[in-house]
């Protein structure tokens, strides 16, 4: 923290009193980053970028949005038709929400593959799961705001999940609604919370980064850095590498926003909410589909709800389920197979969540749900005991031993 490291006297004066430049310098130059991070490590910064885009466009949209059942749909149409560039801002907000989830899912699977949740990064991982939960709540409430058919019926179905709670369920749902159905009080509180929660997420993101900087990034080999020869400064190396990821992200986002803006939405949400008529085939937004499939896989109301929340809750205890001392899947041949099976399982659940709950789909949903829990509760603990891992390299700078299997 010596202020002398800055040559500009103004910077030195400010930094002595408010060490923001020291903090930046620490992050950019002093903070040692493993030099072998691959492009899978881009998704953290991309998730941060997504959050910023969502907050900026969201604050702007709130300037023209009206949170009232009689005007919400109309005010969104006004944004699309009359507000200067309103269509662009809304389409960016809509599509970045989806891209945010794509990025975060990839970020999570990156963590699963390379064992980033293992000691000493358990709290880093848990904070990440907290962010994921907050994101889901925020996204759900945001989807209600345009007050289309899917908004209304999504809100009705999801809030009704809480009616599964024994004894007090009905009272809890009435409390959530602020009435006896999803109505104006529900919409206004969802708007309030939808505006609040991104800032909570930003707060947890700060903690997530503080925890990250305690031990630094994990890396594809999954062994600790052993000194300066293993690390490089974040800037310019990872700033430019993140830039490549950002460019790719923005390119794909632009293609979605400008050419397929409604591809990830549902046509029924362009019909104003009608409490008297449920659409023929209601599905949640795509990013909830795996959890929706788990919910429907169980024939019991309470059981389904518990299992669905359990699917996320299980991630909180993951660091203690997987006891293998080796982090990276590169040196865990059996784990690697199961990792990909889990990945396929998650995609399958997503697919099944979009299918009608009938016939073969129900059976498949049950198998996929069972596999999901089996993976975390049985397979991972067993692998920790029985798996023969490959020998680890001495350090990141001498990975010669390691590069056998992986086609890098």
């Amino acid at each position, binding site marked *: 923290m010596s202020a002398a490291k800055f040559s500009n006297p103004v910077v030195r004066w400010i930094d002595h009193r408010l060490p923001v430049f020291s903090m930046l310098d620490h992050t950019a130059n002093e903070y040692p980053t493993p030099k072998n991070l691959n492009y899978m490590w881009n998704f953290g910064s991309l998730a941060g970028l997504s959050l910023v885009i969502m907050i900026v466009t969201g604050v702007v949209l709130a300037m023209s949005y009206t949170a009232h059942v009689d005007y919400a749909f109309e005010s969104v149409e006004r944004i699309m038709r009359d507000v200067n560039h309103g269509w*662009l801002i809304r389409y960016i907000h809509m599509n970045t929400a989806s891209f945010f989830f794509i990025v975060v899912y990839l970020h999570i699977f990156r963590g699963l593959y390379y064992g980033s949740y293992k000691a000493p990064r358990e709290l880093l991982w848990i904070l990440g799961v907290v962010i994921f939960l907050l994101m889901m709540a925020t996204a759900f409430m945001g989807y209600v705001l345009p007050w289309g058919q899917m908004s209304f019926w999504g809100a009705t179905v999801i809030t009704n999940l809480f009616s599964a709670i024994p004894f007090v369920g009905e009272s809890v749902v009435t409390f959530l609604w602020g009435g006896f159905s999803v109505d104006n009080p529900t919409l206004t509180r969802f708007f309030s919370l939808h505006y609040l929660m991104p800032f909570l997420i930003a707060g947890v993101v700060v903690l997530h980064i503080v925890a990250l900087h305690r031990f630094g990034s994990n890396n594809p080999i999954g062994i600790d850095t052993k000194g300066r020869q293993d690390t490089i400064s974040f800037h310019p*190396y990872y700033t430019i590498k993140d830039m490549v990821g950002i*460019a790719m992200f923005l390119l794909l986002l*632009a293609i979605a926003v*400008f050419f397929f803006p409604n591809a990830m939405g549902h*046509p029924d949400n*362009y019909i104003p909410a009608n409490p008297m008529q449920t659409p023929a*085939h209601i599905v949640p937004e795509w990013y909830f589909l795996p959890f929706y499939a788990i919910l429907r896989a169980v024939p019991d109301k309470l059981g389904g709800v518990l299992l669905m929340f359990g699917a996320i809750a299980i991630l909180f205890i993951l660091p203690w389920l997987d006891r293998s001392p080796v982090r990276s899947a590169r040196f865990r041949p059996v784990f690697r197979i199961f990792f990909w099976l889990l990945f396929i399982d998650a995609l399958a659940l997503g697919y099944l969540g979009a299918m009608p709950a009938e016939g073969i789909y129900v059976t498949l949903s049950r198998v996929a749900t069972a596999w999901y829990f089996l993976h975390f509760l049985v397979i991972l603990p067993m692998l920790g005991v029985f798996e023969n891992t490959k020998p680890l390299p001495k350090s990141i700078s001498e990975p010669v031993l390691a590069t056998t299997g992986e086609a890098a």
Partner: protein
Amino acid sequence: MRKLIFATMVSLMSAVGMPGAALAASGGDVTLLKNDWSFAGIFGHYNKASMQRGFQVYLEVCAGCHSMKYIAFRNLADLGYNEAEIKAIAAEYEVQDGPDEDGEMFMRPARPADLMPSPYRNDNEARANNNGALPPDLSLIAKARAHGPDYLYSLLVGYQDAPASMEVPDGMYYNNAYSGNMIAMPQPIYGDDVEYADGASTSVEGLSADVTHFLMWAAEPKLEVRKRIGVAAVFFLSIFLIMSYLAKRRIWADVY
């Protein structure tokens, strides 16, 4: 590692596509007719002549039952009408205004800033006049149905005699594009329902294509500017991607 990234991206992209696929499948055995819309594709743009004809079809055929309550007369400038023409179109309608000095609501000719008046005062009146079925508002119809334009076109040309095996109750009509094949809307277009000033075809297909074109504009009036900016943005970001990759290579050249 790149394989991993690639595999992940591909599978996620296909996962994202799934709900859409599911939706198409849930429509049943309906196959939609594909039209060669000028607004489709990366450089898509609206055809003003077709939209003006479609607007005429809407006014003379659809507007008796279907409102377009998010469209204002001033929006018709997109169709290529000038200010005087829009004023003239608006002036043919009466809208309620008021209250005046005496507290009374009164009717006055519509102005360009006014929204298009609805044929019914409210949904109940609309139902009462249509056998209990509510004719949906058409402002957003092209976005509120899967495969909007193709669906609307197929629906409008899809009225047929019901197959012998199917009994169609009173007040319902057979349509091969409608889910379940039974629709409460009687066939709206028979061909030659409208007289075009420009001599374009007034066949069922011609009228249906024109009104669909108009409805697509109504649902997505910013489509042209969106695609225009999109081409520039994608071009810019592609260059940016290549540049940042080269810059990354340059900076990392000394690491390994």
